[in-house]
């Protein structure tokens, strides 16, 4: 399942806590649109560099990117101590 929402929290002693609740689905839509626009160029570049360059890598970059994107859901990173704290959560 593609992550829909990202929660972010940054806290530092003496400063106002920063809370961020963002529907990342909006970013994914823009990224997907960009990637579709760039696809013909990527395909041409892949064909041109197929023998001696990164052609194969270019070609597999799309599925690898989307696989990683779809698996982000559930990622939770929380690091902190008494003075500062950072939380990033995808759901």
């Amino acid at each position, binding site marked *: 399942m593609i992550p829909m929402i990202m929660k972010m929290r940054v806290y530092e002693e003496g400063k106002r806590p920063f809370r961020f609740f963002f529907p990342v689905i909006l970013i994914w839509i823009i990224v997907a649109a960009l990637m579709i626009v760039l696809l013909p160029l990527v395909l041409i570049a892949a064909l041109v560099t197929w023998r001696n360059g990164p052609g194969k*890598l270019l070609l*597999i*970059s799309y599925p*690898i990117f989307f*696989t*990683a994107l*779809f*698996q*982000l*859901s*559930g*990622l*939770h*990173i*929380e*690091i*902190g*101590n*008494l003075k500062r704290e950072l939380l990033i959560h995808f759901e």
Partner: protein
Amino acid sequence: MSDERRKILDMLAQGKITAEEAEKLLAAVASPDSSGPEDSSAKPGFKYLRVLIEPGPGSETKDRVNVRVPFKLIRAGLKWAAFIPQTAQKQVNDALKEKGIEMDFSKIKPEDLEELVSHLNDLRVDVEGKEKIRIFCE
């Protein structure tokens, strides 16, 4: 009726197991996860790799880490290893060598990494010192 269910009921009838144990076994047999993992990384019940660091009694900084990484993300991330350029691989090798680890990064195949991740399911690390460190799967 499947063989497993029949065996469990036979064992219950023979008095080898209690009704409670039979119930648990039947539930385990009935769950979709028990039909056998299709690939070794998808063992039932384990979806995330957790890293927990909690401050112990002697900790001065009270550092805390709570990380939960989906296994599928680890597997997807490993595929990005193909994009690491040769020059960077040499630098990684040199850095590892400096730390006393003789390893050739370029010789690691994707299958090796797959195997490594699939066996992370069995990983459990508990360290207690100034901080309590726990690495496990859930």
